[in-house]
């Protein structure tokens, strides 16, 4: 079945897989090909995409998952608020790291803004 993970800014992943595991407010669930059409809200956690022995893991901070189609043409779409490759991290670890990166990039943004102001002010004084 065709699986795609889409965030508001871009398509994060797309490919074929055998099973998708994700987490809704009611708990973790798995989707196999031909699953009855299914629409779930997602809570922060991992979306695991399994294909044979390989597994791709993504951290999503929330969103919705839709599974539908016929047996031959089945698709699962994850509309994630934010998604990134989680590697081998556990759910807790991945969430923690994401929060940390967020803080860092915010601080970076602020730092850059300050730098720009500092660079611009002599120009401004000169008039």
């Amino acid at each position, binding site marked *: 079945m065709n699986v*795609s993970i*889409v*965030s*508001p*800014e*871009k*398509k994060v992943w797309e490919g074929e897989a055998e099973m998708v595991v994700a987490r*809704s*407010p*009611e708990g973790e*669930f798995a989707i196999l090909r031909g699953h*009855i*059409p*299914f*629409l*779930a*809200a997602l809570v922060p956690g991992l979306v695991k995409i399994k294909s044979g022995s390989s597994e791709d893991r993504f951290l999503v901070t*929330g*969103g*919705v998952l*839709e599974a*539908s189609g*016929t047996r031959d*043409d089945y698709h699962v*779409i994850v*509309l994630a*608020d*934010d998604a990134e490759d989680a590697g081998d991290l556990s759910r807790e670890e991945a969430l923690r790291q994401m929060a940390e990166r967020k803080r860092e990039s915010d601080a970076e*943004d602020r730092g850059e*803004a300050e730098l720009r102001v500092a660079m611009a002010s002599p120009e401004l004084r000169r008039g």
Partner: protein
Amino acid sequence: MAQQLRVIKRRISSVKSTQKITRAMELIASSRIIKAQQRVSAARPYAEEMRRLMGTVAKKAGNIDHPLLKERDEIRRVGTVVITADRGLAGAYNSNVIRLAERDLQAHGKEYMLFLAGKKAVNYFKFRDYDCEHSWTGMSDRPKIEDAREVARAAAEAFSKGEVDEVRLVYTRYESAMTQRPVKVQLLPLPKDEFTSEEEPSRGPQPSYVFEPEPEEILDALLPRYLEGTVLQGMLEASASEHAARRRAMKAATDNAEELIDNLTRVYNQARQAEITTEIMEVVGGAEALTGAAIQEA
């Protein structure tokens, strides 16, 4: 004479250095358009899937009824989200959007509430003593979903609380590299027909969905995200438009400088020629006077 030459020369070199700057800005803008365009198209799948999903939910959940979808009987106060750039030097880009927004405010004559994204809009409306409670800057260069979320949430909150009865989004739509047009779209209440009417039945009868949790709750999760996606799309298009407008403005400035330099060079050469001619005349005149004097002596 020589002083006039110096003045012209100085002007030429000043125009040249301006031209260097405008050309650099033009090149930077061109490279940014491509990236901004890519971001616009990268964000499209999400918006499309979201719209389709909302259609699905709306159909399966029967009569959808949600605060964000409900049209108000009486419109007392209108919210307007205006997306502009943080920087100028982009031709009429900023003033076009602002003009559309302001005209809209004046046309409906109702009370207003402004949501301003972009320094240019903030400065404009602040200067004219508009009430600018909600404003953001630093987003226009590379709008992120977090930025769109902040704006969308502020608008949704004001709408849910009943502070405004309608919200519009004014931004510059990126139609192509050549044309960008300021447009006004309705943001809230979410225009229902956008996802309820359309298409289907596509692949035969579709079996009913299983929802987890209930359809109403899913709708609760979907609608704000749909709104955020719409705002993000607007911001991304506005950003692409900004770069396109800046590139055009800077190209015009560069060409203009080129022409100015040509003209000034022509004036400079003429003046120089005139000076040389005068000098030769002086020399010849002097020599002639001397030979004239020599002949008389002989």
